């Protein structure tokens, strides 16, 4: 029997009693991270708000450490669950230290005076998110990235067992995104903190999460480990992407390829071609690419952007049929671009040198 710390059982969420998302079945153990992904407006925030009791749920139950959350008093809940929300806080004349210290609320006495222990926890929480230097700075005058970390320190300072974050990385630049998620991962590992959050960054979601829930339409479309979620073709389906493409393994996003007959042929491989494919896409020039092994670094982006890719099965010698097709394409193109170092080819891609000379002889290079 698996021991879940957090579970939703047939949870139905919505506004004013009108169900928006039904039959939500999520579960999470201590120290695990659950991420909600899905298109804008799918209801990720609605789910999170219902989980933290900000929004009355329409049906079902949320179970925390085996107890129905409805039975918990405000205080009991506040010592177990803390939150980082998207709403902007604008406290006046409060230092970052003051803001963090508000997280001690459930632990202080009638008048909210901090004890020595409270101060210690505040200090540790600030160190944990690397903002000790901000203690005396006016919260209103800090940057978005700093604010978000202050709010995280505040949530940590509440000494929760589970923390709920709504799009915590949205306003952060890549450095802070990574830093922020590293702190969360570290907290989950060292303090066995359970984390429920929503993210827009699919690549990061796939890396940090133990479990991912995909919100789509009126249901949780998929719930499982990242491997179960990021199957080929699923993400474009989830987000109903009609233009461009998403590559599951690398998290690579490409814009919509130019349409029409190929005007250029790109002779590339080993990662040298991607930049050229993208340049041609920007210029709106339809192109063909080849000959690429299907496990080549350039293959995914060529597949996403080129009109035609002449591919070869991995670790196989290039077949004559492929050469034939490549020569046809070169003949049909106005121009050939070569990004390979043709002077230093290996045993297996000697044929590419042949294509290079073929193009050169026809004055297409």
């Amino acid at each position, binding site marked *: 029997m698996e021991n879940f710390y957090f579970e939703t059982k047939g949870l139905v969420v919505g506004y004013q009693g009108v169900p928006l998302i039904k039959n939500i079945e999520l579960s999470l153990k201590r120290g695990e991270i659950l991420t909600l992904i899905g298109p804008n407006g799918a209801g990720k925030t609605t789910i999170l708000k219902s989980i*933290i*009791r*900000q929004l009355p749920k329409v049906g079902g139950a949320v179970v925390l450490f085996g107890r129905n959350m409805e039975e918990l*008093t*405000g*205080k009991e*809940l*506040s010592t177990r*669950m*803390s*939150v980082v*929300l998207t*709403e902007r*806080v*604008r*406290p*006046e*004349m*409060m230092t970052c230290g*003051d*803001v963090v210290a*508000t*997280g001690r*609320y*459930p632990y*202080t006495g*009638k*008048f*909210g*005076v901090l004890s020595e222990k409270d101060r210690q926890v505040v200090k540790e929480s600030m160190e944990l998110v690397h903002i000790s230097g901000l*203690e*005396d700075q006016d919260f*209103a005058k800090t940057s978005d990235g700093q604010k978000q970390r202050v709010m995280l320190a505040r949530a940590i300072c*509440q000494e929760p067992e589970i923390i709920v974050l709504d799009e915590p990385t949205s306003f952060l630049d890549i450095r802070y995104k990574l830093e922020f998620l590293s702190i969360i991962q570290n907290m989950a590992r060292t303090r066995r903190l359970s984390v429920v959050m929503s993210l827009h960054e699919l690549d990061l979601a796939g890396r940090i999460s133990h479990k991912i829930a995909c919100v789509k339409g009126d249901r949780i479309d998929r719930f499982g480990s990242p491997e179960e979620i990021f199957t080929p073709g699923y993400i474009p389906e989830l987000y109903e992407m009609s233009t461009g493409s998403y590559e599951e393994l690398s998290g690579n996003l490409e814009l919509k390829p130019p349409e029409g007959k190929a005007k250029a042929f790109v002779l590339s491989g080993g990662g040298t071609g991607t930049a050229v494919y993208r340049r041609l896409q920007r210029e709106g020039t339809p192109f063909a690419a080849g000959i690429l092994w299907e496990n080549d670094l350039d293959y995914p982006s060529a597949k996403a952007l080129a009109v035609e890719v002449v591919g070869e099965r991995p670790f196989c010698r290039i077949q004559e049929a492929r050469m034939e097709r490549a020569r046809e394409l070169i003949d049909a193109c106005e121009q050939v671009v070569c990004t390979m170092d043709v002077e230093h080819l290996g045993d297996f891609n000697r044929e590419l040198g042949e294509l290079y000379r073929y193009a050169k002889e026809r004055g297409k290079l």
Partner: protein
Amino acid sequence: MEKTLGKDKRKKSWYFLAFILLLALVSVFLALNICIGSVNIPLGEVLRLLGGGGGDAVFGDIVWQIRFPRALAAMILGGGLALSGYLLQTFFHNPIASPFTLGISSGAKLVVAMVMVFSLGKAVQISSMTMILAAFLGAMISMGFVLLMSKVIDQMSMLIVAGVMIGYICTAITDFVVTFADDANIVNLHNWSRGSFSGITWDNVGVIAVVIFAASFGVFLMSKPISAYQMGESYARNMGVNIQAFRMLLVLLSSILSACVTAFAGPVSFVGIAVPHLVKNLFGTSRPILMIPANFLGGAAFCLFCDLLARVVFAPTELSISTVTAVFGAPVVIYMMIRRRRERAA
């Protein structure tokens, strides 16, 4: 560690100094209010009189029957008014919310005026408690309107505009009622409807003290949830605050405070905005546990000061209290709004 301790200590001694300063201001203005007037009475004489010792009978009457109760009322009501403003600002997360700008004072004024005119017509003496109840009723009606509007209007500046409009409507009706009331006492009523601390009796002071001190004590007990509420409703809820009950208490307490002020002194403008702002800047923090007593003292000092000017500057003509509070309060509010605009732009 050493450094933080030193910093904490410095902060604490600053808070202490600020409280001493406010207390000193209150005492000085209280003394001045009793000493200065159409007849100046030396401080020594006043102290002797207040100490229960014998003295000049005329001075005794002036001090005991007129100036002392009036000064006490200005002090306590001023404190209550500032506190009421502070609560409303906290409630609406808006620095220019106050009983005056949200039309709550005017609502109270309207109902009190109607009760007064009605009872004057019937030659019925109305008690202090009736006045407060009438004012409270009026305050709650205005507050109800404001709360209803706050559900529809999500922009805070528009809410204030709506509040000011409610205030104008109430004032217009009050003027109407006062103009057509047929009684000799109308002069009194007219003075009161413009705002004044004059004509306060010991009986009034007793009621004022009980109501305002009780409500203020209640506010002080709420300083912890107020501190959570400063972070916004969602965070407060997550920290275990019962938001529904909290909001109701806050509305109730701020209405009681401003109703009590209006019942006895009429509408008093700007104290509720200017004092919380000044006090916050003096302390350099917005921690409710400090701000609540500090606002009370600040409001007390501010109203004593303004009432002194209202009585003295153009003596024997007395200015309405709102005239003076506006002169000193409005610039503070304007300055505050400009500074906020700049900060937001930066």
